[in-house]
């Protein structure tokens, strides 16, 4: 085992532990904190995949904005005070479905011969990403900014409520 693989296994273990914590924690705040761990683990996976730009975006958008937003929503909806079990009665079926899916996917991944596999992650520089983002993908980029603006406005309208409420 090369040292790269050793680093990968450590990061993968942290990420999976975070993911497990998200779906099994009894306390919802712990669940959210485990989510931060899992998301930062994924950012480290992006570094291993030689995509620093995505790693930076991941830490900024997910590590910062999304988790804070989720924690805010938890506070505002008082998730902790809600009575009753945190999981529904369908839990065993959910576990079965997820296990079957995992088994099938892992089998498919290990059985497939990937065409054109270079065997190692090729570094894609930020320059290259920036160039294609503003040439080949300029239209989707503009649409994405429009989507963000519409989502922002509608989120404010939805959360604000009617006048005099």
């Amino acid at each position, binding site marked *: 085992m090369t040292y790269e693989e050793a680093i990968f296994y450590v990061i993968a273990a942290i990420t999976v532990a975070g993911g497990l914590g998200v*779906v099994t924690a009894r306390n919802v705040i712990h669940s959210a904190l485990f989510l931060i761990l899992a998301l930062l683990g994924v950012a480290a996976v992006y570094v291993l995949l030689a*995509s620093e730009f*995505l790693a930076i975006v991941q830490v900024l958008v997910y590590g910062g904005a999304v988790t804070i937003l989720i924690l805010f929503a938890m506070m505002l*909806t008082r998730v902790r005070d809600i009575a009753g079990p945190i999981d529904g009665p369908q839990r065993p079926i959910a576990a079965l479905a997820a296990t079957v899916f995992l088994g099938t996917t892992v089998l498919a991944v290990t059985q497939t011969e990937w065409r054109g596999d270079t065997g190692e992650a*090729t570094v*894609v520089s930020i320059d290259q990403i920036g160039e294609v983002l503003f040439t080949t993908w300029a239209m989707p980029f503009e649409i994405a900014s429009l989507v963000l603006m519409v989502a*922002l406005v509608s989120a404010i309208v939805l959360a604000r409520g009617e006048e005099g409420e």
Partner: protein
Amino acid sequence: MIPIDNFLVLSAILFSLGMYGVLARRNAVLILMSVELMLQAVVINFVAFAVYLNPETFTGIIFGIFVIVIAAAEVGLALAIILRLFRNRQISNVDEADLLKW
């Protein structure tokens, strides 16, 4: 030299965990968090395919960026809807939001 299979298996594990969370949890915020896990798994897959199989055009990385953009918009909107639901009906569990089921 990490084989691509490692990343794909990691992504499959994360996706299954998210899938379990979405199916088993009752609270809307917790379901949303599980959806985030699933999206992350998908982005890992996209990026792994881009840098291993197709590094010349690396479309997967661009896709990953767009997935993150849409996920951010989705979280904002979903949390606004959950907040609204809580304010109007004092619930935040999806199985109690059954107004359409008379």
